[in-house]
């Protein structure tokens, strides 16, 4: 059962410049593992060296943060959309001082 995962702009360069990918997965953890297996550069951006999801990268199933669901064990169904939402700081953007 393929589930769609949306890749945010800052991370697309590590995911073959794709904005969305689909993987067979039953849980969020499985889906992310498939994702970083296929796009190895993405692993250090999503996981710490101890294999924990980084705290400035939030993962949502539809509109709900997985921290308030069953975290990486959150089950997925085909109609779900998983989003990765990292923190971005830009505002004055591009100021090269």
């Amino acid at each position, binding site marked *: 059962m393929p589930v769609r995962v949306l890749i*945010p*702009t*800052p991370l697309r*360069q590590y995911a073959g410049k794709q904005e969305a990918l689909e993987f067979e997965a039953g849980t969020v953890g499985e889906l992310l593992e498939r994702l970083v297996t296929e796009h190895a550069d993405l692993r*250090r*951006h999503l996981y710490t060296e101890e294999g924990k999801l*980084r*705290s*400035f990268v*939030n993962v*949502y199933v539809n*509109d*709900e*943060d997985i*921290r*308030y669901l069953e975290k990486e064990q959150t089950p997925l169904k085909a109609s779900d959309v998983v*989003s990765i*939402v*990292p*923190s*971005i*700081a*830009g*505002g*004055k*953007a*591009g*100021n*090269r*001082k």
Partner: protein
Amino acid sequence: MSKQAAVKNQETQVAAPPALSPQEILRYSRHLIMPEVAMEGQLKLKAAKVLLIGTGGLGAPLGLYLAAAGVGRLGLVDFDAVDFTNLQRQVTFSTADVGRSKIEAARERLQALNPDIEIVTHETKLTSDNALAILRNYDIIVDGTDNFPTRYLVNDACVLLGKPNVYGSIFRFEGQATVFALKDGPCYRCLYPEPPPPGLVPSCAEGGVLGVLPGIIGSLQAMETIKLIIGKGEVLKGRLLVFDALKMRFRELKLRKNPDCPACGTHRTVTKLIDYYEFCGVRGEEAPVTVPVPEIEPRELKAWLDRGDDVFILDVREPHEYQICQIGGHLIPLGELPRRVHELDSARTIVAHCRLGQRSAQAVDFLRKAGFRKVWNLKGGILAWSDQVDPTVPKY
């Protein structure tokens, strides 16, 4: 009607809200004829004190719309000067402002737009030492900064002072907006407990930004600020708005108050402002992650070339940057270097360059580890070359 509204408003405001002059009534007539704003809302706007942190991309529409809307006291915090590269999106400034203090240029522009409001300028970098004293004098804080340390500083100060933090952030063609630190609402640390380590997330200076994007996100922040002031509608509380300009799609994600949040949770550990540069792992804004490699000054490279030495120039920027300007280098983008390394001759002297020298430092490090011995990094990149050797090479 106006008197009644003013009297009613006195119950919620400490100071009696001033009445509107005939000229102000004319100026704000499109607000006054809307029942959602009306005289009551306009007087609230006039009595409101809003602080804008940053007068750049987000600050431009924020300043213009909040001044135009008649926010009575508008505070501005910035310490930069207007730069040519700002003009693509920071629409408060005109070409003649380049080189001027941003805060002075913004004050002049906003005061010209609306002479009836008070503009207070704070020409300083917001720090842990001055943040509480500055923020304390305002009702609503609007975060239009461009770096993680200031964002965490603004958040913590807002939580400590119990003031709403109207948040907006952008990257390339994506933006986020929400309102943090409302009563019983989440704060920035509920969303992101920790900042990314420096270097892991590309900055906007590296990534670029579509000029209209801060206009859109800053306008959303201005709208939320006005709704907070007039007390109408539903503000972005507990909802994170995520905008993709290329797809022209808004998504809304649930944002929950984290009971374990160190800033606003039940067992708070953030009870005063801390060193946010240390917290974010940087000393100074977006400190580059530099790899120590052999460097060559632009003038020295020029001397080598003038002497007729055999030097191979390797340009590790992206093709779209090569189109802007180049100095005769062989283009292999940094990301393609590992699989295209066979295009290089390790017997020749190689000087690698990029825009500023950081990516090429990584390239030199990679090549040295791959066995290349005569490889140098052009210090300061093509920008330094333009400054020191050939000013006809355009800077970007």
